[in-house]
């Protein structure tokens, strides 16, 4: 039966325009975001943050703040001594700083009070004595200044992580090249700025079980962090990710305010809410790393790459966050677009006294992609090649393995380039005015010694077809569809789906995935509806609740549709199989004759003979008991076996050209 879902039957739901399952709620103000949760006797939390970028905490005096009427609890770092962090290798954050602060905005103490005004006043009555330390504020300072260290771990001084990977004989590759070009690029950092500020509400109930509602993209990782820091059994903690008012990667870490409200709820026995101000969202940050990059590429006259050496220096900010992965990502995907037979990557991430950087849309790959694409344009210009043509001539092949052991499946970049070339009228807008080959190459026998400055100087003799002040450029990119490996080592699926069929024809899909506006709840409904032959609006979707839904790792790295989608397909096919057996028996037709469409199960040879979907569930439940199925998805194993091989592999790569 499982092959039914992969046959060539036309699709009725997937690929068709449907309203998202939550569209009406979002357009009527009914969607409950984290800060929309108001519980009886709820307390409000405010967090006192460091105003110094780097300092030792000498003394914290809470007495005046505690004396303020309406204050129920104040906590400092000593109440939460256990460190946490998203990656097992960087457990370097404390919900409240213990002995030192590492950036302006690092949390120092937290107040729970009867309303926000009292909490705010109390926060301002807390007295902290600091001893300032030297500030490390740039990549250069992070590399050059060893003391004071921002953290006591890492690869020496203020270097958080140094990575080095080499695939193939670079010397041979550069030796074969007709032209070797080197460029240095800098990509400034930026932040996600979701419209919704982070917010969390914790409730510690009379059974001493904790529930946290939070605007998070990764409820499963928050669940793990809370279990560790609060020392409560995971089975006694429930994390519910509320619909995210945008995330873009900025809500993918476990955050200090989530731990803090949980602890305050445990201490006070009352629900506690913390909603960050817009200013505090900038302190949470985890935005795109500023990266300084150096790229050296050897190419043949036709633009074929013979070797590439890419170096990146990342400004990590004050904590690890996803930084080790981000560092590898600045070197991972250079090889998945154009053939790079020999490849070397060196990466360094430094700690600086700034808000911590992390994953933002494309996680560490847009920075090197910018460098690589501009670098290739410069090479094309030096070789007097059309940059679009040069790119499409040397594409990575479908169903191949790259030098750094990334397995490429389908490869759509060529089609993207062709479409953009036609759609943009590239051939008529971008072209040399002079005859091809007339400029830049000089003596064709010594193409390897082209002086880039000479090319630039010669630019008044060459030009584009567009008038002065107008330009057109070409760039391509690629990204993963989910990471091949989970963030913490385990052999379990990355995505799980449970399906429950109601005897009245309703279907409930349960999955840990988190809708951050990308429509992941709708995807689940569409896929299940497609397979069961029902309407997406017959389906109830329950997601992102660690008590009710099987684990999905979270909404990051463009993984959700592929991974939860495949898990949903498996669960739905298993349910359809049970229904098929029962319906075939009832109709007295062979199993392979039973088909599902338009809320019916019927005999394909006599479509008028059949039962409604609800009746199909009834006959199946009569035969098998209540109908519930599960599905899961685990990405295929990556062929790379080296340290760092976990970053870059993906079940599929998406491609784009512009």
């Amino acid at each position: 039966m499982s092959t039914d879902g992969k046959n060539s039957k036309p699709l009725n739901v997937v690929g068709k325009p449907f309203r998202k399952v939550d569209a009406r709620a979002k357009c009527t103000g009914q969607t409950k975001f984290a800060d929309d949760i108001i519980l009886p006797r709820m307390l409000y939390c405010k967090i006192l943050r460091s105003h110094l970028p780097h300092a030792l905490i000498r003394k914290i005096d809470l007495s005046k703040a505690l004396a303020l009427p309406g204050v129920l609890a104040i906590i400092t770092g000593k109440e939460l001594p256990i460190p946490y962090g998203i990656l097992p290798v960087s457990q370097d954050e404390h919900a409240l700083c213990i002995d030192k602060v590492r950036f302006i905005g690092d949390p120092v103490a937290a107040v729970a009070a009867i309303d926000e005004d009292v909490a705010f006043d109390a926060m301002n009555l807390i007295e902290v004595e600091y001893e300032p330390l030297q500030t490390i504020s740039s990549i250069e300072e992070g590399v050059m200044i060893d003391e004071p260290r921002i953290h006591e771990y890492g690869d020496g001084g203020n270097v958080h992580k140094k990575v080095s990977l080499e695939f193939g004989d670079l010397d041979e590759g550069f030796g074969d090249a007709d032209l070797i070009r080197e460029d240095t690029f800098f990509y400034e950092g930026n932040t996600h700025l979701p419209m919704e500020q982070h917010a969390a509400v914790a409730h510690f109930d009379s059974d001493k079980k904790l529930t946290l509602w939070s605007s998070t993209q990764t409820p499963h990782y928050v669940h793990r962090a809370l279990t560790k820091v609060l020392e409560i059994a995971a089975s006694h903690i429930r994390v519910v990710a509320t619909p995210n008012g945008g995330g873009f990667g900025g809500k993918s870490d476990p955050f200090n305010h989530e731990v803090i409200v949980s602890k305050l709820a445990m201490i006070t026995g009352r629900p506690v809410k913390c909603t960050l101000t817009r200013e505090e969202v900038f302190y949470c940050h985890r935005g795109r790393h500023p990266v300084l990059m150096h790229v050296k590429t050897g190419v043949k006259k036709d633009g074929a790459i013979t070797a590439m050496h890419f170096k990146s220096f990342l400004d990590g900010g004050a904590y690890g966050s996803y930084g080790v992965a981000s560092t590898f990502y600045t070197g991972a995907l250079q090889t998945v677009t154009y053939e790079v037979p020999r490849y070397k990557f060196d990466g360094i991430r430094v700690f600086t006294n700034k808000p911590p950087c992390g994953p933002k849309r494309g996680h560490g790959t847009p920075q090197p992609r910018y460098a690589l694409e501009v670098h290739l344009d410069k090479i094309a210009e030096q070789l007097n090649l059309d940059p679009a043509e040069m790119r499409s001539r040397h594409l990575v092949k479908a169903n191949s393995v790259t030098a750094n052991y990334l397995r490429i499946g389908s490869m759509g970049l060529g089609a993207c380039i062709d479409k953009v070339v036609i759609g943009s009228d590239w051939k008529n807008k971008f072209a040399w005015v002079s005859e091809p080959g007339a400029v830049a190459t000089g003596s064709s026998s010594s193409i390897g010694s082209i002086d880039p400055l000479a090319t630039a100087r010669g630019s008044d003799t060459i030009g584009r077809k567009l008038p002065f002040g107008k330009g057109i450029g070409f760039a391509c990119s690629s990204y993963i569809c989910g990471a091949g490996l989970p963030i913490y080592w385990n052999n379990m699926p990355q995505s799980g789906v449970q399906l429950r069929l109601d005897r009245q024809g309703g279907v409930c899909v349960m999955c840990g995935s988190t809708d951050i506006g990308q429509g992941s709840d709708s995807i689940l409904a569409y896929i299940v509806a497609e397979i069961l032959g029902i309407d997406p609006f017959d389906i109830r979707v329950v997601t992102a609740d660690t008590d009710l839904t099987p684990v999905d790792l979270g909404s990051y790295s463009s993984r959700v549709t592929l991974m939860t989608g495949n898990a949903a397909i498996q669960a739905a096919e298993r349910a359809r199989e049970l229904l098929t057996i029962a319906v075939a028996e009832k109709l007295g037709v062979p199993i392979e004759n039973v088909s599902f469409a338009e809320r019916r199960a019927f005999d394909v040879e006599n479509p008028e003979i059949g039962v409604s979907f609800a009746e199909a569930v009834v006959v199946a439940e009569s035969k098998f008991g209540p109908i519930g199925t599960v599905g899961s998805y685990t990405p295929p194993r990556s062929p790379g076996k080296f340290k760092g091989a976990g970053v870059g592999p993906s079940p599929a790569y998406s491609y784009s050209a512009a």
Partner: protein
Amino acid sequence: MNTARKAHISFTLNGEPAEVAFAPHKTLLEVLREDLALTGTKHGCELGECGTCTVLVDGKSILSCLMLGLDAEGREVETIEGMAEGSELHPLQDTFADLGAAQCGYCSPGFLLAAKELIEKSPKPSRDEIREALSGNLCRCTGYIKIYEAVELAAARMRGETIELPRESLYGCE
């Protein structure tokens, strides 16, 4: 503890008479969300920058984070909760839902009310007029195109006309 006496106002809220008591320094945004539990009105900055807290006061879109609750005395306030007629969505709500103009949905209430003001003033707004009217509202998900198209489609439906939508609006780029 806040010992100041609460302020009290009477006004029209989503077409119905309403009274509410609240700490006098509160903004209309805070009064709506915290004292009237109308959490459909959102906050993104509370500095008047982002437009998520847009509501209509006497038919005009205003930023509720910049208006004191006290100033709503005697006025007519409309929030997203009052936009649908019973269970029938306003045409703008319909087209925002149909065209994917609401993605995460956080900015949508503000956009919808700002767009409602526009359509009531200008039943056949040009793209530039729409852009201008919605320029105070930020969206980080959609890139605005679908929002503009949703406003155009709703305005057309309200005029009793049909308009052809770009194919990629419904099906995505092929």
